[in-house]
């Protein structure tokens, strides 16, 4: 088996520091947004007592789900022993850690009492899915960290497969936990189904791989290293399968709901009458997130690097739309306390709730994305994560 040379990105060019500074600026904006929200309270956000989880949760859950998916490439290498994926694994692990960091920061900085994070770390209610997620997220950092160590340090390399397997199983449980965060809610019609857990897992595969591909291509293009078509085409094929699976799960989920009379109202809301939510569902989640990427990836267009990148970007945008529909859409539809009766009150009972995200919320979310990318950018500079070349000849040697 041919060996692969890993090398740090030099990271001394003006371009590198511009990227670094640009991302840093968005991190700063995120910090300022948090400070503003923390000082004035959630009154300065678009969130209220009807829409209690807003745009920050959309960003946070997307990042956490994508983090778990970004580990995919590494898992395929070590758990399923696909040699071609081995050189791609270290970046996969670092990206997973970085995205998880970004997502968690957004999540905790959106708390009503974000200054009390220590309470969340010392008081646990083990009936709560949230508590389990606290452990799942911490464990993810630990296990992926160890896995990364076994990949970077030759003296512990023999443990790589064991660590990789542990991380793989762990992140499957983690995404199950994230999906169940919603699945374990009885109050909202759109939640309360175990379907959300496997659906979140398959979504994580798609979103994570899309993010990974974009970061990989950008890193190689901007450092002038060779990235052969063999790698890209193999990964884009995998991505197409994941996106198709997401579409399949989405269809089955809504078909099941449509079958139950008690769900008719909320389904009609999402699919037909929900205004912006309906638009985001059909245009965002379905067309941009699934149909267009599939058309690109499965046709001749998918052979061109640029079009693969377009597909990845569309999948990410569609993923954000999906999170918006899942999180905001389910809250926008009023709770049905008295089925069959028209409800009216000062507390917006019986009304569809509207939500207009505010600027600080948006920048808090972007800050999380920026932190994730900043950590990755720094990671490739200080660690030997990227193979010096991934041209077709080098990759072909790996397979034999």
């Amino acid at each position, binding site marked *: 088996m041919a060996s692969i040379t890993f090398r740090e990105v030099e990271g001394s060019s003006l371009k590198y520091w511009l990227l670094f500074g640009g991302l840093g600026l968005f991190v700063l904006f995120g910090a300022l947004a948090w400070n503003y929200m923390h000082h*004035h*309270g*959630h*009154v300065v956000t678009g*969130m*209220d*007592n*009807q829409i*209690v*989880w807003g745009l920050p949760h959309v960003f946070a859950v997307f990042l956490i789900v994508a983090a778990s998916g970004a580990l995919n490439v590494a898992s395929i290498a070590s758990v399923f022993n696909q040699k071609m994926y081995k050189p791609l694994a270290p970046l996969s692990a670092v990206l997973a850690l970085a995205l998880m960091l970004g997502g968690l920061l957004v999540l905790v900085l959106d*708390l*009503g*009492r*974000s200054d*009390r*994070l220590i*309470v*969340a770390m010392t*008081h*646990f*209610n083990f*009936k*709560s*899915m*949230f*508590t389990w997620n*606290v452990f799942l997220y911490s464990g993810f950092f630990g296990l992926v960290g160890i896995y990364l160590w076994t990949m970077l340090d030759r003296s512990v390399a023999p443990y790589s497969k064991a660590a990789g397997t542990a991380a793989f199983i762990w992140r499957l449980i983690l995404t199950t936990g994230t999906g169940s965060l919603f699945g*374990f*809610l*009885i*109050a*909202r019609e759109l939640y309360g189904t175990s379907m959300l857990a496997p659906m979140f897992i398959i979504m994580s595969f798609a979103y994570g791989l899309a993010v990974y591909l974009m970061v990989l291509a950008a890193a190689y293009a901007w450092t002038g290293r060779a990235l052969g078509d063999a790698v890209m085409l193999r990964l884009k094929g995998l991505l197409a399968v994941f996106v198709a699976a997401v579409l399949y799960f989405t269809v089955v989920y809504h078909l099941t709901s449509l079958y139950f009379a008690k769900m008719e109202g909320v389904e009609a809301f999402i699919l037909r009458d929900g205004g912006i939510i309906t638009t985001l569902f059909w245009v965002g989640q379905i067309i941009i997130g699934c149909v267009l990427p599939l058309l690109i990836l499965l046709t001749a267009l998918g052979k061109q690097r640029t079009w693969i990148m377009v597909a990845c970007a569309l999948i990410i945008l569609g993923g954000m739309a999906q999170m918006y529909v899942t999180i905001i859409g389910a*809250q926008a539809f009023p*709770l049905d*306390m*008295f089925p*069959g*009766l*028209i*409800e*009216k*009150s*000062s*507390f*917006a*009972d019986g009304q569809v709730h509207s939500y207009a995200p505010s600027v600080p919320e948006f920048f808090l979310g972007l800050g999380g994305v920026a932190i994730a990318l900043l950590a990755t950018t720094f990671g490739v500079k200080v660690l030997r994560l990227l193979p010096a070349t991934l041209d077709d000849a080098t990759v072909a040697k790996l397979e034999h």
Partner: protein
Amino acid sequence: MSEDKSIENTPSSPERRRFVGLAASAAGLSLAPGIMLMEVAHGRPEEQAASSAVRWGMLVDATKCGTGCNDCVSACSTENGWTPVAESQHKNQAPQWIRKLELQDPLTQFETNLPMMCQHCADAPCVDVCPTGASFKRADGIVLVNRHTCIGCRYCMMACPYKARSLVHEPLNDTQKADVPRGMGCVESCTLCVQKIDRGDGTTACVEACTASGHNALLFGDMNDPESEISKRLRELPTKQVRADLNLNLGVRYHGI
């Protein structure tokens, strides 16, 4: 005539009761610290913890609830110190511990109205989902938020089928009542006037207001005590739990819905 009667029927004005309560405790304290000679009616000794032998609950008779009457809501706001929604700058973000709900059957045009608040479930979803255990059920069945451990994640608000909870969205600037701590970034809801229960008042602000208004649509008491007024009425009247399909075993029961 009826007006006179309703005033007479009012157990006694809050001021008067508070005075009696304080006078009693003052007398007890001045005689011998730590030993209470006089006990306030219905109350447990103050050093005794709330007991699961008691289950506080409420009966709402929607047939008696006055259309357009908002007295229970105002009384709650006054007792617990939250700003009435009409006076609030940010109406969608203003906390509402209790609200009047108007219901109409679209087919029959039958209209009814009732107060909606925390239902004090025995199996409360908010208690299950709270990551820190801040949302909890007291031994006597009252569902509360421990603001010392609430981190404002709002998962309980997502979980509550009754939309009973509110997040405090803006600074309160020291307008809180001494007995009712509330704070920005924490979640809150109806406490069944826990401060009044612990004081031995044996009723809540909304029930007092409803009785004072002459509607008598609300009744508060110990549902575990077969001799209590509420237990007797619950035995006679057909009542329902809101969203009984969820099987949460509610502390608030409705008649006439």
